[in-house]
C-alpha cells in the first residue's frame, strides 16, 4: 500500500465534490443575474434581486418568523434537552434503554408523517394557534439533535467530578450549574447551532403547520416559486445559505466540526 490515494479514489472524490458544489454555484450565479428570469450563467451582474427580497413584505415577515421560531424552538429544546440528556447519562444504569431512544424518535419518523401528525393533533385537533403550533413542531424537530449532541458531550463527562463538588459542600442543583454545565459548554453551543440550522432550513414540518398570515422562509420560497420565476428565490436561497455557513463557521471556530461525526 502506498501513501498516495488511488487515482480512482481521487476521481470519485472529485466527482462527489463537483456534484455537491455545482448546484450552489448555479444558485449563487442565478441570484446575481440582472435578468428578470432565472438563468445561468448570469447575464449582467446585479444585486437588485437581493434588494427585492426586502421589498417583498412576505419575505420580510417570514425571515423574522423563521428566526423567531428557530431561536425560541432551539431555546425550549435546550431547556428540555439538557436536563433530559443529563438524566439519561447520569442514570444510564438505572434507566431503561428505550427511554434514550424515545428522544430520537422524531428523527426516525419520516418528517412528512411527523408534520402531518402534528397538523392533525395540534392545529386541527386542539386548535392551537399557527405560531404556537410551528414552535411546538420545531421544538420537537430539533429536540433529538439537542439530546444527541449534549449526550455525546456528557458521555465523556466524569460524574465523580460532580460527586466531588457535592462532597465539598455544594448543593446538587448548584453543582449542576457550577460544575456540570461549564464542562459540557461546548456540547451546548454545538447543540444550539445544529438545532438552529435544522429549524431554519426545515420544510416538511413547516409545510403542514404554517397557516394564514404566518409562514416560514423556506415555505415562502416555495410559494414564491409557484408564482414567479424571477431570481429572487435564488437570492433568498443564497441568503439562507450564508446564514447557515455563518453559523457553521462559528461552530468550526469554537469547537471544530468533529462532533458532527459522532
Amino acid at each position: 500500500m502506498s501513501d498516495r490515494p488511488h487515482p480512482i479514489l481521487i476521481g470519485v472524490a472529485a466527482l462527489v465534490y463537483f456534484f455537491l458544489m455545482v448546484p450552489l454555484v448555479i444558485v449563487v450565479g442565478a441570484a446575481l443575474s440582472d435578468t428578470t428570469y432565472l438563468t445561468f450563467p448570469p447575464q449582467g451582474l446585479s444585486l437588485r434581486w437581493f434588494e427585492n427580497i426586502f421589498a417583498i413584505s412576505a419575505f420580510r415577515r417570514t425571515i423574522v418568523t423563521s428566526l423567531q421560531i428557530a431561536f425560541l424552538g432551539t431555546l425550549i429544546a435546550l431547556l428540555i434537552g439538557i436536563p433530559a440528556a443529563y438524566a439519561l447519562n447520569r442514570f444510564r444504569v438505572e434507566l431503561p434503554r428505550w427511554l434514550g431512544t424515545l428522544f430520537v424518535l422524531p428523527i426516525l419518523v419520516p418528517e412528512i408523517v411527523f408534520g402531518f401528525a402534528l397538523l392533525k393533533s395540534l392545529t386541527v385537533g386542539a386548535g392551537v394557534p399557527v405560531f404556537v403550533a410551528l414552535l411546538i413542531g420545531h421544538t420537537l424537530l430539533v429536540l433529538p439533535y439537542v439530546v444527541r449532541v449534549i449526550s455525546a458531550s456528557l458521555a465523556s463527562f466524569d460524574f465523580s467530578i460532580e460527586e466531588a463538588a457535592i462532597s465539598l459542600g455544594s448543593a446538587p442543583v448548584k453543582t449542576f450549574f457550577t460544575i456540570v454545565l461549564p464542562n459540557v459548554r461546548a456540547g451546548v453551543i454545538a447543540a444550539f447551532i445544529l438545532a438552529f440550522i435544522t429549524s431554519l432550513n426545515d420544510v416538511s414540518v413547516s409545510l403542514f403547520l404554517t397557516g394564514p398570515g404566518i409562514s416560514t422562509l423556506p415555505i415562502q420560497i416555495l410559494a414564491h416559486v409557484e408564482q414567479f420565476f424571477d431570481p429572487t428565490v435564488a437570492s433568498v436561497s443564497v441568503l439562507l445559505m450564508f446564514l447557515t455557513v455563518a453559523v457553521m463557521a462559528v461552530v468550526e471556530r469554537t469547537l471544530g466540526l468533529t462532533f458532527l461525526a459522532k
Partner: protein
Amino acid sequence: MTQPLDINAVSAHYGTTKVLEDLSLSVQAGELVSLLGASGCGKTTTLRLIAGFLSPTSGSITLGGRDLTRLPTHKRDIGLVFQNYALFPHLTVLENVAFGLKQRGIAPAERRKRALAMLERVGLAALADRAPGALSGGQKQRVALARALVIEPPLLMFDEPLSNLDAKLRVDMRVEIRQLQRANGTTSVYVTHDQEEAFSISDRVAIMNAGRLMQFDRPEVLYRRPANTFVARFVGFENIIPFKVTAREGDRVTAETAGMALRLPQSAYGTIPDTFLLATRPDGLVVSTDPAAEGLPATLGLRTYLGRAYQYQCETPAGHLIANGSLTAPLESGTAVKLVPAPEQCTILAAEGAR
C-alpha cells in the same frame, strides 16, 4: 475536630441483590481504617453509604455522635479522594483546592491564603495557576488530597486513590498520605483492593467478602492470626489442612488427616480443638529429606525459584500443598520428603462446615 465514625448494622440492597449485609464497624477518632477486599465485596458501597451517595436499606451511620443516615451528602462535611482524582477541569489548581472553602462562605482572600498553604503542604504551590489537565497523575492526586484536606473535615475518605498511579509512585504517595493523615489526626476510611497498601498504612483493616465483614483488626493480627479460612487464604495461608484429634498426651496432641498422623505441641499452637484446620503459608511447611522427621509425607512436584527460596508444588494424601525449601539444596521433582509444620508460621482455625 477529629471524630469517631460508627457504622451500625448497615445493610444495602439493590432490588434483590444484597450488596451489604448487616455491617457494623467503628472507626476511632484519628484512626485510619482500610476496607479491603476484591471488587464486589461491598467496600465501595460502604464508602458511598458513608458519603451519602447511597442510602442504606437499614441501619445507621454516625460521625462524632451526629446521625448522618438521612443527611444529604453536601451537608455531611466529609473529605473525599477519588481514584480518578475528579478534579474540576475548568478551574485552576488553586480554584480546585479553594472550592470547598468557597462553599463554606469564606472570603476570597482568606480562601486563597488557606488553599495556597495547603498546596504548599503537598508541595504544589508552584503549580497553583495551572489547569489540572496539565498535571501528572501523582500531582493530580496531591491536588485532590489538598482539596479534601483544606476543608478540615472530621472524616476523610479515600476510594482506591492510588490505583491509577505506577508502582513506585504508589508507594511514595501512600507514605505521604499516611504522614498527612497522622499530622492532621483526621479520622480516615481508605478503600483498596491492594493488601500491601492496606496493611502498610492502616491502624486497622476491615477485610470484606460478598457484602460481609470477615475480620476487622490490626494488620499484624490479620497477617499472623486470621480468624477464618477466607481471611487466611486472603493473606496468603495457601495450605489449609483439615485435622481430627485422635489422642492427647500432656502437651502432645496427635491429629490425623487422610490417614496421616501428626503430633503437634499444644503449647506452640495454643488451644487445639478436636477438629480443626491447620493453616500455613508455604514458608510454614519445612521440606525435610529426613525420613524420621515428624511431618506429612509428600512427593515433590514442580519447583519454582522465588529469589529468597525455592517453592515446591507437593502431592500428599491430604491433597495439593505448597512448601518453600532452602536455596542451598534444591530438590528434584519426584523426591519423597516430609513436610514439617513450623508452629510459629502456622495458625489453627476452627473447622467450618459449609466452606
